[in-house]
């Protein structure tokens, strides 16, 4: 062991000394090198995760999937925009193993026949129509405390404050299922105790632009494009419909900077500069 320590000490670059010998992780025993985390890497979740079903997204999520034992905040420019497109691959896996999907206060009525086609069967779906913010918070907290193993909790909490989310997060640490909290895009300016925050917007041609606002590990610049045709439409689309942007370009001059645009911010900024 002293020999090994000696090597580690030697390997450390000293200030002003000769740095011709760069630090090589390969010299370290496996147990040590695997425990080293560098600032540029994606953090380790350190707990179980549920794969999101999108490889591109998994690569950027700590641990490679949606975390259990923590709340995950998903921001969208408007409610009921892309919840199922983003989550249904993960949820379908949970449902297949018998998990319950619990919806707390969704903004619109869930349509079970459509969800069944995505793999979320009607037996495993519970809709809790909680209306007031207080009811939603209370219900979510009760569910998180109950720890519905193998399932998932989806809560729409647009008005939740940071301290209320913190309370949820503390309870979620002992909850073995993923907890998703949906909030408006404007909430990205507020601090949040959720260890993982994502902003999902619609991209062109059935893509979802996912921006990771907060995660364990290095910050992520830019956004990830994940191809996601709304589940039941993929089977009936013709190749032409797979690229609706071309279709639109043909039929009309686009007018992007209309109400609530979240599609192309850069372009807006350019317009404003002129």
């Amino acid at each position, binding site marked *: 062991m002293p020999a090994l320590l000696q090597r580690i000490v030697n390997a450390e670059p000293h200030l002003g000394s000769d740095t011709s010998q760069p630090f090589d992780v390969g010299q370290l025993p496996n147990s040590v090198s695997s425990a080293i985390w560098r600032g540029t890497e994606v953090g380790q979740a350190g707990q179980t995760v549920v794969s999101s079903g999108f490889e591109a997204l998994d690569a950027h999520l700590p641990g490679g999937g949606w975390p259990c034992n923590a709340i995950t905040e998903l921001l969208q*420019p408007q409610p*009921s*925009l*892309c*919840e*199922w*497109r983003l989550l*249904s691959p993960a949820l379908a896996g949970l449902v297949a193993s018998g998990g*319950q999907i*619990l919806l707390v206060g*969704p*903004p*619109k*009525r*869930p*349509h*079970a*026949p*459509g*969800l069944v*086609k*995505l793999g979320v069967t*009607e*037996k495993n*779906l*519970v*809709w*809790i*129509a*909680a209306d007031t913010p207080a*009811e939603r918070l209370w*219900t979510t907290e*009760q*569910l998180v*405390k*109950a720890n*519905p*193993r193998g399932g998932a909790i989806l809560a729409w909490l647009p008005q939740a404050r940071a301290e209320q989310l913190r309370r949820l997060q503390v309870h979620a640490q*002992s909850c*073995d299922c993923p907890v998703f909290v949906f909030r408006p895009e404007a909430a990205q300016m507020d601090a949040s105790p959720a260890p993982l925050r994502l902003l999902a917007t*619609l991209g062109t041609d059935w893509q979802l632009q996912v921006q990771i606002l907060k995660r364990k590990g290095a910050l992520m610049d830019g956004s990830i494009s994940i191809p996601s045709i*709304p*589940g*039941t*439409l993929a*089977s*009936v*689309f013709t190749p032409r*419909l797979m690229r*609706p942007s071309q*279709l*639109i370009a043909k*039929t*009309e001059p*686009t*007018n992007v900077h*209309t*109400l609530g*645009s979240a*599609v192309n911010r850069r372009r807006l900024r350019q317009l404003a500069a002129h």
Partner: protein
Amino acid sequence: MSTHWAALLTDADCDSSLRIDPIGISVWALQFTPRVAKSDHAVLLEVEQSLRLFGGEEHMHQLVEAGAFELGVSRLAWAPTSLAALACARVGIRDGSAGPLAKVLDPMPYQCIDAVNKHDATLARLGCRTLADVRRLPRGGISRRFDSQLLLALDQAYGLRPEGYPWVTLPETFSAKLELPGRVDTAPGLMFGARRLLLQMSGWLTARQLGVTAFTLHWCHDTMRSKDAGDGGELTVRTAQPTQNVEHLSRLLGENLAKVTLKAPAGDLVLSATEVTPIIEQSRSLIPDDRATGEAIDLVLERIEARLGKKRVLRPVLTEDTRMEWMNHWQPMNAKRVATKVRQVPGPQPTWILKKPLRLDVHGDRPLYQGPLQLLLGPERVEGGWWHRITDAEGNQHALNVARDYWVALSQHAGALWIFQQRLPKDTAASWFLHGLFA
């Protein structure tokens, strides 16, 4: 055969002013042993045979004492014989089996045993004070001068003769009454008394190996009520799974009581188990679970339902219908479900649906929703419903017939939408509606 007795005094003053009902206590105690006897104001239970089942003497003591304390019994004692236990409870010794029985009983005043206390006047004039004094008197003289009951009671207390009691039998149905110490004005204030009744019910359920699926709390208004208030009210609480769990039942009852307003102050409470089914206890695992699971998810959903209301915790039921609105309906958690396999509608279906289709503005020929919509796919004609008649508020019948052409439309901001065009007679402007979202 050694015996292990507990005596619970129900006539002692206790801090809470609720009167303790010996019958209720004996029903509650039947969950520990079938040998429960009621003598005047005390409840006696013999638990020797049940000690192992409840995890040993110490654990048994804790269980009984904790339960009795919640029921308002503050004085109880343990001893090898029932009369000794009763005597110990009266003088305030908790455990009478600590030393030899004679040593425990001898210094006690003879008033502790009822049969001896009956001859109080004579014994006092004889100069007796303690049980030891009475025992020192010649036996032959005692049996001649006093009745045989005194000697019998003494021998039974000292464990020299066997004791026999008419055991309390478990009632077939459960209904318990409680007189509240004062008038209760608010429904949540009934919880204190109701919890005590729930404990008794749980004891009865355990003894009968049943689980409750519905119970009724009935309250009687006191005599000072106004004329229109009626005699009282009642509240029935239902559970999905049969349960004996007092915590769960009292939380459910609490949620339900929070929504009740009493028409007049209440004086009496009656709790009855209206629906019961046999329950099979879960066997515990030898290896401890790595993380304590919370309550079962069904119990939590039931509690949420109790607070939010019946129509707020819903599960979908699919039906074979091509019309969007009736493809699935939502029903409460506990409602029975048909187990038939439902054929799915072919083709795409949205994931969110609007309760009422939203009429869209039309610009030129194109519908607008957060900007102009691009129609991608369609039309999918949905027609029918003439067989589905409903009666509206005014008593007129009309059919829920639809004639629609559904399209998949793309909005730049709202994603893929499921919109339809109402098919109308000729020469009428087409109207577009938004009905669902492919989110």
